[in-house]
């Protein structure tokens, strides 16, 4: 599991859908993003019914599934193993509860551990239903990142934060992933509440796409998660190499602004 994350500030965490448009591309994109300075990478395992995702990520999942209906955890872990040979930075899966359930909860954490995956986000798994997942997560030392929203009540926040590893994912505002007009106005307060429970990085996602968003997120928390925007950019490019280089440029500019 990623141990040194606590020291990182102003992290950039790109999200990429596995296999959109191909596994080879995803692998190159991850390696290229790490080289450009990405601190951590989230790999989305395509799902037929991604409830929390907006139209951009949903379309990305559908493209990946149309290309390869057999895409899933196994193929994702192959990519993880290959990337890990070259980069010792943390990689997470974003994976729907049913995909983990179908794979077998114990097998999932065991195989993730063997492949070097650091953690996973299961966006439709609430802490109340997570007992078995947490048991194997702890045993096999593959973390679970839990989500927190500005609507999460204090009595639950403690349990969520204590069990989240290696960071807490703060949802910027209500709604699905992708573009939105504004972020919740009390993010600062929530970050403080989380840090009061445990000294853990807080990364913020949902609708983070422009430099000003990244700067704001970095002023409030420790990392910015960028998904839908990168997915749009990749789709707009004419070639795979152009797609990788524009993502690299964006990561560098997001990082640079964060430092200045």
């Amino acid at each position, binding site marked *: 599991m990623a141990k040194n994350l606590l020291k990182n500030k102003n992290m950039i965490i790109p999200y990429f859908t596995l296999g959109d448009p191909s596994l080879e591309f995803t692998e190159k994109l991850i390696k290229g993003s790490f080289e450009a300075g990405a601190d951590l990478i989230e790999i989305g395992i395509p*799902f*037929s*019914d991604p*409830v*929390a995702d*907006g139209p951009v990520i*949903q379309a990305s999942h559908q493209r990946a*599934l149309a290309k390869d*209906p*057999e*895409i*899933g*955890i196994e193929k994702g872990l192959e990519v993880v193993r290959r990337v890990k040979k070259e980069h010792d930075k943390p990689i997470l899966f974003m994976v*729907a*509860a*049913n*995909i*983990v*359930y*179908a*794979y077998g909860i114990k097998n999932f954490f065991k195989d993730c551990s063997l492949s070097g995956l650091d953690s996973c986000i299961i*966006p*439709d*798994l*609430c802490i*109340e*239903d997570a007992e078995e997942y947490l048991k194997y997560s702890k045993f096999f030392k593959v973390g679970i990142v*839990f*989500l*927190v*929203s500005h*609507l*999460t*009540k204090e009595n*639950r926040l403690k349990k*969520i934060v204590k069990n989240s590893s290696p960071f807490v994912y703060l*949802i910027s505002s*209500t*709604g*699905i992933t992708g573009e939105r007009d504004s972020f919740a106005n009390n993010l600062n307060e929530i970050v403080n509440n989380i840090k009061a429970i445990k000294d853990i990085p807080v990364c913020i996602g949902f609708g983070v796409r422009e430099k000003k968003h990244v700067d704001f997120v970095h002023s409030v928390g420790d990392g910015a998660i960028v998904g839908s925007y990168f997915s749009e950019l990749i789709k707009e490019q004419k070639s795979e190499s152009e797609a990788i280089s524009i993502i690299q440029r964006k990561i560098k500019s997001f990082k640079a602004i964060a430092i200045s």
Partner: protein
Amino acid sequence: MNKNGHFGIFGGRYVPETLFSALDDLYKTYIKLKKTPSFRKEFNKLLKDYVGRPTPLTYAKRLSNELGFEVYLKREDLNHTGSHKINNALGQLLVAKHMGKSRIIAETGAGQHGVATATACALFGYECVIYMGSEDVKRQQLNVYRMKLLGATVVSVDAGSKTLKEATTEAIRDWLKNVENTHYIIGSVVGPHPYPSMVREFQSIIGVEAKKQILKERGRLPDGVVACVGGGSNAMGVFSAFVKDVSVKLVAVEGSGLGLDTSEHAAPLSKGRPGILHGALSYLLYSDLGQIELAHSISAGLDYPGVGPELSYLKDEERLTVRAATDETALIGCKWVSQLEGVIPALETSHAFGYLKETKDFKRDDIVILNVSGRGDKDMSTLQNRIELD
């Protein structure tokens, strides 16, 4: 059921964190309200004066003669709006009112839940948005017009199978965005806790009445209670009063589409396995890799890959007799009961009739209650295309 909404391994709250507080508030409000005499009085008065309850239990004489056992029809088709869905829509609207929500959303398959919700919203002056798959918009045009006439906005969902699954996903996405002012009226005993138990309780009036009626009429419990199952709200509604009466066979009839041995069916209890979709763990149709499979049924209301968690639990407890009827069997059942009893059932309910016509589950002189969950007016265009009449 435990406090986190589990029926054995089934149920739970598999939702994005943003919705959790809303579910928690909903549960707490509902638990408080259902013990409040004024709320129960208000709900019961609506059911009596607006919906027209109690619905009759009709003895189906000609059907019984042909079958050799005695069939009673629980007439939910006679409710205002034409199906059992109104019971739950009104109940949830009252809860939403008490929670101070100003906007209502719902998903609908056949359109009966959409019509019931739009009706409740018109009655109480609420903004109403109904999500419906574009395929269902096409095959249930009459109900789309009814919803609009009642003042609701109908959003056609053009993704995936373009049916109830996608409509539900879009409704959840709307709720994720507008959770602070919106209540989501789920139409069946599916979704995250507390929906499965709350919807069942609002529908339990069906079974409570039916039990009282059959005891009065025949002086004994029935040998069987039959209901069609999509998500399972009419089934749980009528079954719940009889679950503890173990002598009563509870028959859940799923839609087996083109056949259980094909991939074109909507029968998760018969052919699915436990899985997670739309907020709950239940029997579900999905691939080895966890991708949700598309269901198929001629009836929009059964066309869903999942089923309620409590029905999943009752199946595992062997309390449920799970059966299925194909599209073709349902059509035969529809014509059969129309011409023998003068009751044109909804295509969903027609599956239960089709099953009844073929079954050997009952013996001579058994008493069987079949829940007529809705009337068939909405299905005329499908029926015109499929049943040729001289």
